[in-house]
């Protein structure tokens, strides 16, 4: 198994930490992982993206120009990365703020209204976990159990009480994923 993913959105949406949780989950199931972010001034208030690879074998290039899955959280990122999804690949987006929906017909497209759901829950911080849950519904490459173990490993002890809330958010995302085509 090998999954090459780009997660892209605004700085502050939890793009990098979502990638980190995903990568940690991969480690929990004994996979090789890599996580490569955009860095520098670009990150400060602007767009942020991270390439994450999970693989059963040694990962060659951590830097990619095409992806199995693109997780897209704003219009700029959609414009930038829609074309880089491999044919037959997957694109998941949050329609919040999207004015021009994805147009490709050779890939699987899903929608998750994570911004709205997080706002309804009164918990903006669980936004990225809802998105992650939606992704894992479309591409069940890691078990929820391993996400939980990854969170336990990556979060400091004092934040462990927030893990159940994050798992609920994952499950909400799984439930609310909508297939576009």
């Amino acid at each position: 198994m090998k999954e090459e993913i780009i997660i892209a959105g605004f700085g502050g949406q939890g793009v990098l930490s979502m990638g980190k949780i995903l990568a940690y989950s991969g480690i929990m199931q004994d996979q090789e992982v890599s996580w490569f972010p955009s860095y520098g001034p670009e990150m400060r208030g602007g767009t942020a993206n991270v390439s994450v690879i999970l693989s059963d074998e040694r990962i060659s290039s951590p830097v990619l120009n095409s992806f199995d899955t693109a997780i897209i959280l704003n219009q700029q990122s959609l414009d930038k990365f829609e074309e880089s999804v491999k044919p037959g690949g997957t694109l998941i987006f949050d329609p919040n703020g999207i004015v021009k929906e994805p147009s490709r017909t050779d890939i699987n497209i899903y929608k998750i209204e994570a911004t709205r759901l997080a706002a309804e829950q009164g918990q903006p911080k669980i936004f990225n976990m809802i998105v992650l849950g939606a992704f894992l519904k479309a591409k069940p490459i890691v078990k929820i159990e391993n996400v939980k173990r990854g969170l336990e490993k990556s979060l400091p002890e004092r934040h462990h009480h927030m893990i159940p809330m994050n798992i609920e958010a994952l499950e909400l995302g799984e439930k609310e994923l909508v297939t576009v085509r």
Partner: protein
Amino acid sequence: MGDIRLMKGNEVIAEAAIRCGCDGYYGYPITPQSEIMETLMLRRPWEETGMVVLQAESEVASANMLFGGASAGKKVMTSSSSPGISLMAEGISYIAGAELPALFVNVQRGGPGLGTIQPSQADYFQATKGGGHGDYKLIVLAPSSVQEMNDFVDLGFELAFKYRNPAMILTDGVIGQMMEKVELSEFKPRLTNQQVEETQGNWAATGKKKNRERHILTSLELQSEKQELHNQKLQAKYKQMEEEDVRFELINCDDAEYILVAFGVSARISQKAVEILREKGIKAGLLRPITLYPFPTKQIQKLIPQAKGFLSVEMNAGQMIEDIKLAVNGKLPVEHFGRMGGIIATPAEIVEAVESKLIGG
């Protein structure tokens, strides 16, 4: 199984320093490697192992602080990125001249000048051919994974002390900023002053004892005859490095006709290109130099009988290609493919370069 984490390359450098018994880190912030000192300051190793961490007033001062710490026989290191390494060149030259062990880390960004903060490998010449003034060499290690960022801190110190010579980890913004699974090294205690005296006491400035001559750590020799002897001694040391400490990795080279040569992140991308080329039925392989100095010249020469050509893949305008050409000595075509300005080459571009420059050419 050891301590397995998901960490950034830069953070791993800091953690590995603490774990290998490093005595002191002196540095100055610069993107894309500031996480190294930030991680150290957050970890407060002075409370845990007694390791000193100091933010200096400049890279010039950092490198010269290394001169001081290394003179004491201690394990000292610094890190920076390209423009900062230029400022350290003075200190590096003095440290090489005075034959002191010290570890430098260069998380390269694009240049010249202030250039870009995006990744680059344009400091190959600077690292392998000197960088500062005078006839000297650094031991240059090129990690291509976060795991090697961990492993090469200890290895860098080991080689630096073996030869009493500065060593450099030459990496780049990609390896520094990316996270991968890493198995951290076991903790090694710092040497006590007594142990430093026992192991380095024959040269280090540990305070002059009654029963020995004074130790003078200097790079100055006013008599030409003596200076030349010193130069010859240094050259003999570099020769020994070339005999004993060349490191490299061969991937798919057994039957390879087209040999890609790449280090650091370029080697990772080239490995992907080799996979694609193999799928196309082209017999491609990758030689990854791990030590850029000493360079795996002999290994390249061993591949000449089976090979049809070499492609040097670097994130620069063509620097390592000169060392490959020296090794190949005109016997086969040697071509270069590289991107600059912080742009990371894609596997597809490299495949295309092999096809157009080596196979088609």
